[in-house]
C-alpha cells in the first residue's frame, strides 16, 4: 500500500511545486503551493507522523498561505504590471544549476539505508512532546523569542505610522 500512496502524493507534491514556479498569476501559485503542502502532509501521515502532519496543515494552510493570499489581495498588482519574465542566459544557468543539484542529491541519497530499528510512532503527539520538552527544551524556548521578534518586526515593517 505504501508505495502506491507514496507515488500518488509524491506526484501531487512535485506537480504542485512545478506549478508554483511556473504560474504567472501569484494567486494560482499560492493555490498550487497549498496543494503541494497538503501532499507533503499526507506523506507525513504515511510515515506515521500524524502530529507533524496536523502541524503542517495548521501552520501552512491556516497561517502561511492565508498570509500570502492576504498580501496578494492587499497589494493587488494588476495583470499588466506583473514582472515580465524573459528567459535570460543567467536564469537558464540558474535552472541548469538547480537541475544539477537535484541530480546530485538523487545520486547521493540513492543508496541511503537506515539502521533497521523498530519503527514506533515517532511523530506522534507523545513522542514529539516528550522530545520537545526534555532534550530540546532550550531550542523550544528560543523559538518563542524568534516568533516574538518576527511579530514585532512584521508589525514595524508593515505599519505606515507607528
Amino acid at each position, binding site marked *: *500500500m505504501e508505495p502506491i500512496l507514496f507515488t500518488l502524493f509524491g506526484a501531487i507534491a512535485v506537480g504542485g511545486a512545478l506549478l508554483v514556479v511556473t504560474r504567472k498569476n501569484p*494567486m494560482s501559485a499560492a*493555490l498550487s503551493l*497549498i496543494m503541494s503542502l497538503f501532499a507533503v502532509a499526507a506523506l507525513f501521515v504515511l510515515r506515521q507522523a*500524524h*502530529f507533524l502532519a*496536523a*502541524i503542517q*496543515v*495548521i501552520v501552512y*494552510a*491556516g*497561517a502561511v*498561505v*492565508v498570509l500570502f*493570499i*492576504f498580501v496578494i*489581495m492587499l497589494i493587488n498588482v494588476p495583470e499588466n504590471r506583473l514582472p515580465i519574465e524573459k528567459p535570460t542566459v543567467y536564469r537558464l544557468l540558474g535552472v541548469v544549476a538547480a537541475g544539477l543539484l537535484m541530480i546530485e542529491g538523487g545520486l547521493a541519497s540513492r543508496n541511503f539505508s537506515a539502521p533497521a530499528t523498530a519503527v514506533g510512532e515517532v511523530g*506522534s*503527539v507523545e513522542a514529539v512532546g516528550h522530545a520537545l520538552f526534555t532534550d530540546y527544551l532550550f531550542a523550544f524556548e528560543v523559538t518563542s523569542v524568534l516568533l516574538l521578534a518576527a511579530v514585532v518586526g512584521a508589525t514595524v515593517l508593515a505599519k505606515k505610522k507607528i
Partner: protein
Amino acid sequence: MEQLTALIIQKVPALAVAPWAVTLLLIGIVAFIILQFAMVFAGFGTYLERKIAADIQGRIGPNRVGPIGLLQFLADGIKLILKEDIIPTAADNHLFRMAPYLIFTGSFAAFVVVPFGFSLIAADLNIGIYYVMAVTSLVSIGVLLAGWASNNKWSMLGGMRAAAQIVSYEIPVGMALIPAVLIAGSLSTQDIIRSQGGLLGIFGWNLFHNPFSFFSFFLYMVAALAETNRTPFDIPEAESELVSGYNTEYSGIRFGFFFMAEYADVFVVSALATACFLGGWQIPFFNAASLPPVWANLLSLGVFMAKALALVCVIIWIRWTLPRLRVDQLMRMSWKYMVPLTFFNFLGVSLWVLVFKGKGIPQMIASIFG
C-alpha cells in the same frame, strides 16, 4: 477500521483475497453516511432556524410543505439545484468554481473525528481535536478565494473580514479546548469523553471539573461562534453593509454548498463542545461498556445527539436575539480579551491538574462523603 475489516473477512472468508478493497469500500460507506448526515442536517438546520426565528419574531414560519412545514428543506434544496448557476463574467472562473468545494471540504472533513456514540466514530485519531483545528483552516482559504474570485468589492471585503476573523479566533478556540485535553491527557475525542464517565453522572463532565474548565466552556462557545461566522459575529456576511459578503455573487447549488458548510460548522462546533465539556455520549449513571454493544451505541448516539442539538438550538437563539458587532470591536475582543482570558484559563487548568493530580471538585466532594 482495520478491526472492522478483519471482522468482515472473518465472516466472509472469500473476501480475504483483497483486504484493501474491503477497507476501501468501508471507508466509502462511512464517508457516504456522514455526507448524507451533513446534508440532511443542513436541511434540518435551516428548518429549525426558520422555525425558531419565526417564534422569536412572533411569526409562524415555514408551514406549507409537508406537516408543519417539515419538508420545507426538500423544496429549498430542489430550488437551489434547479436554479441557474451564474458565474459573473468578471470573475476568475476556476477559482470561483473551486472556492465552495474548498469550504465544504474543510467543514465536512471535521466530521471524521466527531464521536457520535460509544463506538460510532469514523476514525479515532490520536490527534483528534488538533485534526479538527487543522482541517477547518481550509475554510479560511476557501472564504478568501470566494471573496477574491468574485471580483466584487463587497465579496472582497467580506472575504478579507472572514479570513481575518477566522484566523484570529482560531487561537481562542484552540486554547479554550485545551482544559479538556489536559484533564483527559489525550487529544483523541473518544479518550476525552471516556475521561468524563464514572458514577457521578453529570458531575463527571469536564464542565464541572473545576472553575477554569467551567469558564472555558463559555469562552469556547463565544470563540466558536465567531469562527463559524454566526451572529453576533457575522460581520463577513453583514447584510446591512456588505449585501451578503463573500457569497454575494454565488447562486444555485454553489450557494447551497456555502449553506451546507455553515450548518456543518455549527454542528461540528456543538459536537466538539459536547464532547469536550458536556460528557459526550456518556449516559448518566450508566457505564456504556457494560451494556450490549447495540444498545450501548444506540443509547449513546441518542444522548450525544440530544446534547449537540440542544447546543445547536442555543446557537440559533443567539443569532436571533443579539445584534451584530462592529469589525474593530470584533478584533479587539479577540486579541485583547479572548486570547488573554484563554491563556489565563490554560495556566489555571494546568496548575489544577498538577496540584490536584487531575481530580475535579465533584470527585473531591464525593471522596469526602466516602
